[in-house]
């Protein structure tokens, strides 16, 4: 299964267009929405993961989005957690919407699931030890 994580930014004119529907219908792509900020009449931001058995289908879908005027960028930013400096306080888990950062309920140590992370960056300033950062 091929997968790609991308960040879509689209102008207000496109906000009401059923773009994700077309990706499913015309390109047979499975879409996992990781983060969405869409307000009518404002520009929108959508972080999605596209998957299909063929990478070509994914690329065709991305070309379609670009033709519609959507700005497509790979989700290349990553959250870096310096585990050996961590005191396992849990302050970062208070702001993690995606459940990527969570406390193990037995050991009460922090666990970071990169696949769930949508790189919203809320955890970066929430960490009292300044050991969570964003890498490009």
């Amino acid at each position, binding site marked *: 299964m091929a997968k790609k994580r991308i960040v879509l930014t689209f102008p207000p004119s496109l906000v009401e267009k059923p773009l994700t529907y077309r990706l499913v219908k015309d390109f047979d792509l499975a879409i996992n929405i990781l983060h969405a900020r869409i307000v009518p009449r404002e520009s929108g931001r959508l972080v999605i993961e596209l998957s299909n058995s063929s990478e070509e289908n994914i690329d065709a879908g991305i070309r379609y989005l670009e033709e519609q005027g959507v700005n497509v960028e790979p989700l290349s930013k990553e959250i870096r957690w310096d585990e050996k400096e961590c005191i*396992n306080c849990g*302050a970062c888990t*208070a702001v993690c919407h995606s459940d990527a950062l969570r406390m193990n309920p037995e050991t009460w140590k922090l666990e970071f699931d990169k696949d769930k992370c949508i790189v919203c960056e809320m955890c970066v300033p929430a960490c009292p030890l300044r050991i969570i950062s964003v890498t490009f």
Partner: protein
Amino acid sequence: MGFSRTYEEINEKIKTGRVVVLTAEEIIPMVEEKGVEAVAREVDVVTTATFGPMCSTGAFLNFGHSDPPIKMTKVWLNDVPAYTGIAAVDAYIGATELSESAGFEYGGAHVIEDLISGKPVKLRATAYGTDCYPRREIETYITKDTINQAYLFNPRNAYQNYSVAVNSSDRIIYTYMGTLLPKLGNATYCSAGQLSPLLNDPYYRTIGIGTRIFLGGAQGYVAWEGTQHSPSVSRNEKGIPVGGAGTLALIGDLKQMDRRFIRAAIFHKYGVSMYVGVGIPIPILDEEMVRFVSVKDEDIQAPIVDYGVGRRSKPTYGTVSYKELRSGKIIIDGKVVPTAPLSSLAKAREIAETLKTWIREGKFFVQQPVQPLPAEQLTKPLEIREKDEFPINI
């Protein structure tokens, strides 16, 4: 009268390597299985611990005298001001003091952590000069090994229970209880719960002035009641205070401390604080002490306080137990609110284990308090008053 033992008997057992020590978490299932009386006979000491942000932390430093000598009137350590309105080369560096150059990113807590780590710290001082102290300024580097003395003196640590923080307002707020999301988007709490020292000795029978403790990886002592020590707050049917109550002033040698157990912290848009590791042994003097140390998270409640209201008296949403908080979510007004800790239970467990090992290996002895902490006291508020509101003759 049931079974009882003395401090001297416990210390004799520590000396001969026969002492039985468990942590405050390990004792819970043992009491359930064997009962209070059997455990009182079997166990000598229970270790408790906490590792949370404690703003009221700082260190007294004596730098030693330079040649020619200086009577310091202003002192900076890595650009962080320290208080020196005491003798010539004495100073107090408070954990929350901010750097004059780096602001929120570096503060007194970082200076303390750097000193503990053995890093060189830049000392700058100015003076007006006197006949006996002619020097008017100095700039040099110090480490914990080059200076005369360095000891932590923390006016308020180890709070006995604390509030749970939420935010009902429409905007995100940044507090000493972490980042609080709008409209009850999250709840943060800050206590080691069933492992926390003062929750295992709710009426301060064994924790008092002179009690020997684990502080930041070294052996330290309870010096006094902590500031805002407030034992008279309401208590539940088990005697556990519902919310912040007793506190401790702690003292210990900075030079012996270990960065694994004391760390500088930055609370975004709030300021600098310090995570302090505190471990306190509870001697099992009798069956009553067994009942106290077998306290469970479900027996301990904390009030849910709305930090979205920037006033001294904040509205509350009832109380919640630490068992519920540890489940990851609580329900407030019918809404599911995710919870997050701020105090590290993993570190508290490491401290309780370390203290257990010290006692078992004969490196740490229990100390009977020389005086108990006040049992009744409430915190006084600060009101804005005019001088003529007071009687004339005082």
